[in-house]
């Protein structure tokens, strides 16, 4: 499950460190291992202008948050949420879902993680923070 891409993102995370300015922030925790992430978003004209984050976590949660920043920054909130849905579907697919590289780019490296249910929460930690943070911005679209 430890694809090179995951280890690369883990060792050289993108967008790490909390930055100003931001519109909303979310704190998420994984109750079984105590891992946590604080994630900030800046949304301009319906576009994700910046994502910054900090926290502690395993290679999977760190790498997936790093990939997240690559996948959503510069895209509209709508596009970002579509990407998120694809990533969540992949992660909850128990290894049965074929990932679409056009949509998920480096995110497809997490396909193997989906076979380890205990690690799926790790891979989704940053994404849950992103979803929650966007919901807290004025531009936050309704999220279920």
């Amino acid at each position: 499950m430890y694809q090179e891409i995951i280890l690369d993102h883990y060792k050289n995370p993108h967008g790490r460190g909390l930055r100003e300015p931001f519109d909303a922030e979310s704190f998420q925790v994984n109750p079984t291992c105590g891992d946590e992430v604080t994630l900030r978003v800046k949304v301009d004209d319906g576009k994700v202008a910046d994502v910054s984050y900090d926290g502690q976590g395993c290679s999977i949660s760190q790498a997936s948050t790093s990939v997240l920043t690559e996948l959503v920054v510069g895209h509209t909130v709508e596009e970002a949420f579509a990407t998120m849905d694809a990533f969540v579907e992949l992660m909850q697919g128990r290894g049965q879902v074929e990932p679409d590289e056009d949509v998920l780019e480096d995110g497809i490296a997490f396909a193997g993680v989906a076979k380890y249910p205990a690690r799926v929460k790790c891979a989704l930690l940053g994404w849950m923070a992103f979803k929650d943070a966007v919901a807290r911005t004025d531009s936050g679209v309704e999220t279920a």
Partner: protein
Amino acid sequence: MTTTTANSVPLDVAAIRADFPILSRTVRDGKPLVYLDSGATSQKPTQVLEAERRFLETSNAAVHRGAHQLAEEATDAYEYGRARTAEFVGASPDELVFTKNATEGINLVAYAMSNAATAGPEASRFVVGPGDEIVITEMEHHANLVPWQQLCQRTGATLKWFGVTADGRLDLSNLDELITERTKVVAFTHQSNVLGTINPVRVLVDAAHKVGALVVLDACQSVPHFPVNFHELGVDFAAFAGHKMLAPYGIGVLYGRRELLEAMPPFLTGGSMIELVRMEGTTFAAPPQRFEAGTPMTSEAVGLGAAVDYLSVLGMERVAAHEHVLTEAALAGLGEIPGVRVVGPTDMKDRGGLVSFVIDGVHPHDSGQVLDSLGIAVRVGHHCAWPLHRACGVASTVRASFYVYNELSEVDALVRGVREAQRFFGVA
């Protein structure tokens, strides 16, 4: 797996009995066992015992905690048990909380309601206090009676109850007086474990919901015996127990509507039900985990799933039809004996698979003893429904209760045994 096995074909009882080794044992000096006490607890088929054993010998580990392969397999097996059971009772998996028995499930709701007083504002709809009323019935099992008395004692709320008619039905004549704006909970049994009466759930649900009260259904004697769909019934909470439906001991189920479980404060607290723990305070996980503190009944959940599979293959319509035949025969056979009085409806309308009765001049304990000496296992006493017995003017009764593995010859044995008890005590 579906329950659409041709409903008109009767159960193959001989084949079923082969799955229950205990049924071929003898008791009391070689008498074949006639087990008519499934209302207390059912026997367990080999399939259920095998499922539990297989789990323990291959995948056993702590669920929802570990990250190794065994822990993954164990978690999957446990959650499969929940999913299968949810499907079986018309609910979503996250609406089912595993408890140790049905009693714990009802206590869970009653304690969550008193905990609501000191929990956050989202729990306010569960708060009860002086001036509020909890409505139950006189035909409740102690499990759906004492927890509500205790809730009233803790909070100052008042307990009210429906009476029972002479023919063993719920007396709904004062429905409008009992269920009022003051009512916060209406708790009642789906099927009486003494009378066999099946109560009109819809009538009570409608009356309760009209005044904003929560409905708690004791489904202990319904889920094992006929098709039950909680979403269709519209109840807010329901409790039942695995051990009465071919499953292991130590596992029960509390059903709660999703939005209620989401707002409800926890009951038992500890590991696996938390979100964030600091010495200064704790926040809690989403349901159903919020209500499952500590290491759960893992292999028992696997066994419950296997029991649900077993019943689903039989088909619950056919199970109900089978019990109908046995009960009708028992009512007819006992009805022919002078001096035997059935406690509960004597016709088959809205009535389930058990018969309670008294023999004039023979105390139930003595009747039970004579039956036992003939190999017939029935239950004697008040069956944890003491107020109901008082309302029926008896201290105790003899109860014969039927399940999938019982056959008509066993009903005949019961009827013969009752005559023998009369003979022995010189009342016939």
